[in-house]
């Protein structure tokens, strides 16, 4: 009835241990002490400008070169550091998995979200708005013509870009 949950529940048990690894907060920014096996798809972060293209989705334009980034939420020091050294670039990425980072209307118009989400139940950040500067994290899917980022995080940095 409930196979495969041992590793997960160990993580749950560990949160009760004094000074044990906890939740998503500590996942990012940890020192790299073990030899890293390169995954098929890298988790990256990049900054850039948000652009919506009619009929062609959401894009990060004037984007910085993507940097490999560990999974896990940013902490405020990391965000502040990105903001302090903000430098746009020339890359361009199509953004996918955007629904949760649009406004409520955009989320409800995505896939079949409206089938199980009422207007008062929407959890949409609204950080993806045209013309904004954002810091994104996600899976980088390189392509010959278009490279995509499947989003896991969008942090709004400024309401304008450049």
């Amino acid at each position, binding site marked *: *009835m409930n196979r495969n949950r041992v*590793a997960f529940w*160990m993580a749950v048990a560990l949160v009760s241990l004094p000074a044990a*690894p906890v939740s998503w907060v500590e996942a990012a920014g940890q*020192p790299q002490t073990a030899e890293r096996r390169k995954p*098929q798809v890298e988790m990256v972060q990049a900054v850039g400008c948000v652009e919506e293209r009619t009929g062609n989705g959401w894009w990060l334009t004037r984007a910085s070169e993507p940097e490999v980034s560990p999974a896990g939420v940013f902490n405020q020091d990391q965000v502040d550091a990105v903001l302090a050294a903000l430098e746009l670039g020339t890359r361009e990425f199509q953004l996918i998995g955007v629904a949760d980072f649009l406004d409520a209307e955009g989320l409800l118009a995505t896939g079949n979200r409206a089938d199980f989400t009422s207007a008062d139940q929407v*959890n949409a950040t609204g950080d993806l708005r045209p013309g904004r500067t954002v810091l994104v994290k996600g899976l980088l899917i390189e392509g010959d013509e278009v490279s995509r980022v499947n989003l896991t995080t969008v942090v709004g940095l400024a309401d304008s870009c450049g």
Partner: protein
Amino acid sequence: MRVRIAASVTVLGLLWAGMPTASAAESPTYNQDVGSILLENCASCHRPNQVAPMSLLSYKDARPWARAIKSKVASREMPPWFADPSYGTFSNDISLTDDEIATVLAWVDAGSPEGDGPAPEAPRFSDAGWSHPSGTEPDYVIEFPIAWEVPAEGETPNFNLYTPLPFNDVLRVSATQVRPGNYAATHHITTGLVNMPPGKVLGTGPAWSGGPMVDYVPVDDPDADPAAQAIPAGRPQGGRRALDPEAREEAAAQRAGFGPYIPGVGADVARAGQVREIRGDLFDYVIWNLHYQATGKLEQARPSIGAWIATEQSSQRVRSLGLREATSEGRQLVAAPPLTAEERALAGPSQVGQGLNPTLDPIPPNDGNWTVTGVGAFQNDAVIQSLFVHAHVRGNDFTWLLTYPDGREEVLLRVPNYNFDWQFEYELAEPLRVPAGSTVKSIARYDNSRNNRRNPAPQKEVYWSEQSWDDMYLTNVSYINADDTSEN
């Protein structure tokens, strides 16, 4: 003539015997129809010494409960199952089909007849009360050394006790189970493998800060030789280590113990061809994370662990994908800056109420639509096996979504009415192969309003911890790497 009459009577008798009465023809019977439904879908819990209040192993057991069975089955309250049938199919779905429900209702309405023929054979169950579907007893049992006394009233905090792991090699298992020893008084138990922190020994100390003095607690070793405090080479420390995420996942897997007891959970059985390793070569202790609840009378609980030794070799390792990034209430979660050593010392060891999800805000009083969405990422081709979510009594509904690398979004699972009493791991009937570059999201909604009939205190803010008065957002995707499968 007498012969002819006798023959006619015999023929009529045979015809009559072969023609069921009107009611028998129209109504199902226990032996022919209903018994197998109850045994297949209900008896794993409805048998002696299990969580259910009555046994349904036989006609004699079931008959007195016929009206209650009808009521629970008609409302789909039993057997419990919470996945929306619109999305996905699951191998552990114990809900009844419309036809099965109709059969049970018709049987009760007809007076619950036993019927002719032999009774359906009950599945084999463990004599000792274990829940492996084969009915076998575990090959290995670890019993907690003492019975814990649960007070009749009041809250008992979540606490940890340690017992020595009674083997020092690798135990390859196909199934494990943690039994609470007392279903009513047990909120949950999780187990894991650890080593004693440097300078500590197993001794007598408070079960929790200010709690009763008990054995099986790590205490300062007054005779500790600083030079001897290091954990032997090759054995991981029990506490925090600086690890990159992959190494952290590996360490978590190595520490994986025998699993949990949570309501609705039985034996944790690996799929065919998969095994798990209990690393006695790396760890010396079992840590028992215990959480009890008052029942109104003094209770005793003595948990135990069972393990079924694997009989086949396999390289497939079940992995656990954490959802490490999240948004909540329209806000991208960003952690506070890490504390300095000085700040950590000032803050003390605990973050009361926020220890589990410190980036989440508390749920405000009377908020009926509080949301959080966790996001996880597959960096390699994977095969999803199951989905799991854990919350407490404010948990209301959960939806799992997959976003493919081409941008398509698919609902994997929707649980529209989460129920703390039945925390299923939803096992995909067909494990789902997902390409590298996919993300998975778990959207949760909590109801802290008075509309939530389970809510004990809608007027209070709800924090995040394992205590039952707080809530939790814990999700998990169990998967194997695609290159672990025999297809590759």
